[in-house]
């Protein structure tokens, strides 16, 4: 397709955008919150389905090859007075073979390739997608034996058998109704509904892990239905001849506050005004989200329990800053969490989640404002992604500090990569500041809103993929699923942010190999350290906990047998070789996970 303006190709861009959104949504649910960052990332860089950023040939460590040829906006070509060079075509949609309703490869009214109804100039399009996402995962995480009861006799020590396996099947459908001449002009109106259903089954070896009641048993089957998308998108105005525009989107929608999902990458109800300017060199968002609680065991949005948490975002992307092909992001994000006023909240398994079962367990509200600067693209042949956040605000009562704390924390991430033939070399660094004095009035441990990062190995890495319960230190997780932050909160799905935490430093290198057009191998090595250990030492009453978490080794394949996204098979394996700090916290055994993921899409 060569160089094209965003959303030029009606079917192409539209289909892809929705496919990506769907895939992103699928991934969000896999295993209670898993977002396939690679996929979400594309949406991340998009505005209302427009691909606006970072179409550079950069591939995420765990992503499949980009499904369509990439486009680099080195610059936008000047406008030629060339309209007359075109020959008018009466009905360009039917120029090609129109297939049956079940054939997505040719022009299909169900895929918004051709109008479904409406008179010329006011065509309406429909788009239907169905995705099946199947996941099997086996893992070993540190778990405690049951406190009130154990599964086996002779369970005399705190740590039990942490081998678990997990199976999840997601079905997501997406229905869109789109009005407009979608070839060049942004659609006038879109209505999209993406219901999702998940059923999963988790087998665990110890009592008290699956439900608060230790008598529950060793296998938990859970199911949930929710909406990953449920919105109306209304075109407000065009700002230029090149279809710089302003639109608004109302309802449950995917949103990523930065390039890599470090801060807020979720599907939540909200109001968003977005658009572009200056020949698409500038994109902007202004949004308010009113978060939903997630279903405990699937990570799917509930229908519809308010999380008592609101997020306000204003950001701007600017292309070709610093270097052509490098986009920068400036953002301010405010989060207000008033769940402390709502009393005790338990998850579906009977575990307390608000307030978190840690410290003095008092109710809290919090207000935090993030100031972010990010960059993504390439400088010469070096691909780069950068993100920095400073967060300030306050927690009305941090349970670890036993007092009100003022938030002042930082996060920094940098990835550089270089392509050589079919090999990509990557190096990345991630830092989330920790809190060196848990009892003072400052919270200097960085925490996010709802992160789903695609970084330093993404969901291939053990530490990032798995939730690790903070055994012996309270009923919280040291780190949550699909997160790098050791933020000691009671789950991403329902817990509240906590800015008194140890923080982390991640040093990562990786190599990706495009072995075949259909097959990609991704490898990663990460060295992980806590940034500050005082919080862990105090919670565990153990002054000898050291910084070193360990070495996280992972490898994964992405196989697309038909060179498209209709069938994707992903597999991965990761091990965490414990360092001295991890040994002290959880013992010397090697932790691991392995997963296989089959995605089928219509």
């Amino acid at each position: 397709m060569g160089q094209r303006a965003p959303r030029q190709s009606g079917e192409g861009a539209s289909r892809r955008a929705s496919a990506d959104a769907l895939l992103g949504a699928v991934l969000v649910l896999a295993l209670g919150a898993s977002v396939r960052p690679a996929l979400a990332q594309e949406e991340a860089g998009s505005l209302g389905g427009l691909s606006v950023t970072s179409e550079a040939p950069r591939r995420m460590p765990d992503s499949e090859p980009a499904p369509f040829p990439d486009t680099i906006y080195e610059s936008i070509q000047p406008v030629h007075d060339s309209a007359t060079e075109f020959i008018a075509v009466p009905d360009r949609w039917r120029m090609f073979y129109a297939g049956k309703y079940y054939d997505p490869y040719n022009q299909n009214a169900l895929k918004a390739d051709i109008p479904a109804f409406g008179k010329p100039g006011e065509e309406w399009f429909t788009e239907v997608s169905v995705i099946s996402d199947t996941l099997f995962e086996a893992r070993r995480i540190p778990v405690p034996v049951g406190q009130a009861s154990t599964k086996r006799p002779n369970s005399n020590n705190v740590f039990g058998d942490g081998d678990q396996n997990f199976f999840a099947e997601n079905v997501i459908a997406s229905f869109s109704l789109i009005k407009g001449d979608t070839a060049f002009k942004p659609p006038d109106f879109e209505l999209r509904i993406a219901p999702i259903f998940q059923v999963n089954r988790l087998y665990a070896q110890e009592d008290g892990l699956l439900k608060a009641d230790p008598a529950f048993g060793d296998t938990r089957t859970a199911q949930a239905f929710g909406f990953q998308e449920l919105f109306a998108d209304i075109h407000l105005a065009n700002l230029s001849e090149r279809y710089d525009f302003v639109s608004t989107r109302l309802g449950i929608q995917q949103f990523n506050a930065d390039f890599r999902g470090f801060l807020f990458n979720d599907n939540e109800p909200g109001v968003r005004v977005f658009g572009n300017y200056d020949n698409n060199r500038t994109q902007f968002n202004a949004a308010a989200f009113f978060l939903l609680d997630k279903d405990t065991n699937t990570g799917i949005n509930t229908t519809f329990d308010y999380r008592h948490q609101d997020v306000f975002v204003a950001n701007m992307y600017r292309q070709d800053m610093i270097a052509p092909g490098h986009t920068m992001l400036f953002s301010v994000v405010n989060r207000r969490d008033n769940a402390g006023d709502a009393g005790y909240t338990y998850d579906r398994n009977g575990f307390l989640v608000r307030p978190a079962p840690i410290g003095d367990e008092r109710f809290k509200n919090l207000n935090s404002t993030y100031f972010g600067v990010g960059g993504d693209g390439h400088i010469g042949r070096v691909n780069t992604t950068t993100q920095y956040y400073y967060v300030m605000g306050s927690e009305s009562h941090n349970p670890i500090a036993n007092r009100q704390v003022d938030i002042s924390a930082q996060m920094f991430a940098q990835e550089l990569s270089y392509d050589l033939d079919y090999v990509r070399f990557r190096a990345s660094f991630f830092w989330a500041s920790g809190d060196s004095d848990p009892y003072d009035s400052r919270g200097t441990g960085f925490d996010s809103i709802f992160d789903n990062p695609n970084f330093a190995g993404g969901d291939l890495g053990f530490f990032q993929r798995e939730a690790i319960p903070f055994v012996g230190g309270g009923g919280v997780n040291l780190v949550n699923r699909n997160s790098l932050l050791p933020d000691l909160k009671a789950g991403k799905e329902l817990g509240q942010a906590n800015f008194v935490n140890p923080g982390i430093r991640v040093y990562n290198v990786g190599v990706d190999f495009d072995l075949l057009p259909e097959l990609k191998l991704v490898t990663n090595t990460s060295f992980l350290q806590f940034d500050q250990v005082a919080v862990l030492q105090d919670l565990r009453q153990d002054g000898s906990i050291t910084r070193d978490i360990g070495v996280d080794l992972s490898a994964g394949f992405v196989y697309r047998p038909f060179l498209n996204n209709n069938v994707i098979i992903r597999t991965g394996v990761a091990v965490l070789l414990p360092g001295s700090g991890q040994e002290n916290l959880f013992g010397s055994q090697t932790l691991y996970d392995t997963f296989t993921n089959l995605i089928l899409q219509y």
Partner: protein
Amino acid sequence: MAHKKLTMISATALMTALLGCGGGSGSAGETSGGDPAANFNCDGSCANQSLSVEEVTTILQQGVAAAKGMGTAATFAITDRTGNVLALYQMSGAPQTTTINGQTGASGGLEGIAVPSTLAAISKAGTGAYLSSQGNAFSSRTAGQIIQQNYLPGQNDQPGGPLFGVQFSQLICSDITRANGPVGPRPLPLGLSADPGGFPLYKQGDVVGGVSAEFDGLYTIDPNLQDYQESPEEVVAMTASLGFEAPAQRTGNSISLAGRSLRYSDTTYNEIVAPAELEPLDPAGFKSQPSYTNGQIRAGTTFGTAPSGIVATEKAGIPAAVLVGRFPTIGGRPLPGGAQLSASDVNALLDSALTTAYRARAAIRQPLDTSARVSIFVVDESGNPLGFIRSQDAPVFGVDVSLQKARTAAFMSSASAGTLLAAGVSPNYAASFAAFTGVSLDGSHAFANRSVGNVSRPFFPDGINGTANGPFSLPFPGTAAGPSWSVFNTGLQLDLVFGSLVGPILQPGTVPSSCTSAVFGGRLRNGIQIFPGAVPLYRGGVLIGAIGVSGDGVDQDDMVAFYGASRRGLDYVGYTTVGDPYLGFNAPLEIRADQIVPQRNSRLRYVNCPEAPFSGSNEQGVCTEG
């Protein structure tokens, strides 16, 4: 090797004691305990202090001024660290009685009984003194937090408090806490108190006693940990303690028990206003209380010296303490085949357990990585004490509790437990137990105290609200007719000692010769305890006694008992030929209570040893045989 290493460690500890104690920058007063910001840095080896009569007077005067300022009249008690009542003072017009209320709506037991305010005050002050040490400062509010049906109280489906049941210890009927003995530790008339308003007193970083205020007419517990209660009794008692308050770095708020911090007070010292002027005390305000005080104000004893009743010693190269002239190491009552514990077995067990505690990271003490400090009793299979040792600076409450625990484990594991329970206490808890578990209390199983605790909670499994009570407990109010559960009506534990606890309240001056009825002999002489920290001891499958431990976190207590009696523990201190080559003195695996799976698919526990328990080591899983 091990001995030598430990000696070196203790020498280091001694150096620390000499160099590291006292008031840091010297900003703290020389004679008064000093300001809460002062970090005395005491780790358990600071020199012991005591309260003078003048200091006791000052504390009382401050309390009286605070009560007057509040427009009320209070009853005050001050004790020293081993429970000697230094002053019992009642302002004119103070309520004479206080009514017991466990806040669950329960009936029966001690619920609803009006007791003299003086007795409540003594229990509250003694609680502050008994639960605290140089490493931790706990108040009666802290006690209330850790003994309720859920931990934290107010939360659903959380197992009960770690010290569930500790309120029924330090009883006047105990052979440890004696009203008429020449020295302490002394009994607390209502056991340990959960009623806010009892605090420890400190001087130079050392616990010198406790103080309390009682005037609201309610002897109760705080079931709601989310509010800041603004307890007037706390405000008055804290005002009384000014100059002798606990170092801020030692209060419960600074201590994480399995990641949850403890409550010290709902009021902070920043909110306490020192009285402008102190008035002379009214001589008529000093009250006598038979068995506790003759009405004279007196100076406190210095902990660790003979008058306190607990004196310093050294054992296995570790700074330790014993009860003055009591509980020498002896062998057990003869058993068929000579299976009984010999004096040297007991000595080995005490060495091993004390060493285990010394190696262990404390769960409830600051600074981090100081060793656990506990009290350790070994008893024979009939509950006779065979030996006692305690770590330097272990909290005093553990002396009585460790013996309660040891006796409980020995008793429940014995062949006669079911028969004696059926004969000696009503209702028939033994029958309830058999019906509930399908197991008779006939010696077929080894019950650790954790196992006993599992079936002594108002919910089974522990903490799962709405389930039926364990067979040694009473139903939670609202779930069944008849007597119901509260911290003042716990079931078997209270019913065993009810007469001996209430009798002396109704007839002041009487001192029962045992806490339990004659049916039990001396087996449960000071009552049972229903939280973890004891295991029964065996030789060749024959029950020969039990070891009980109290003073640190319950997982640490469990470990000191179990690991101390285990092959690994005995080997560590060089007793490689003592005990079974595989089990040490621990029970055979196949008879431990964790083989029992009662109703609801919920197995009983035996012990639960902590994560990375030993200082300077990442060793995990230490309570595994072999």
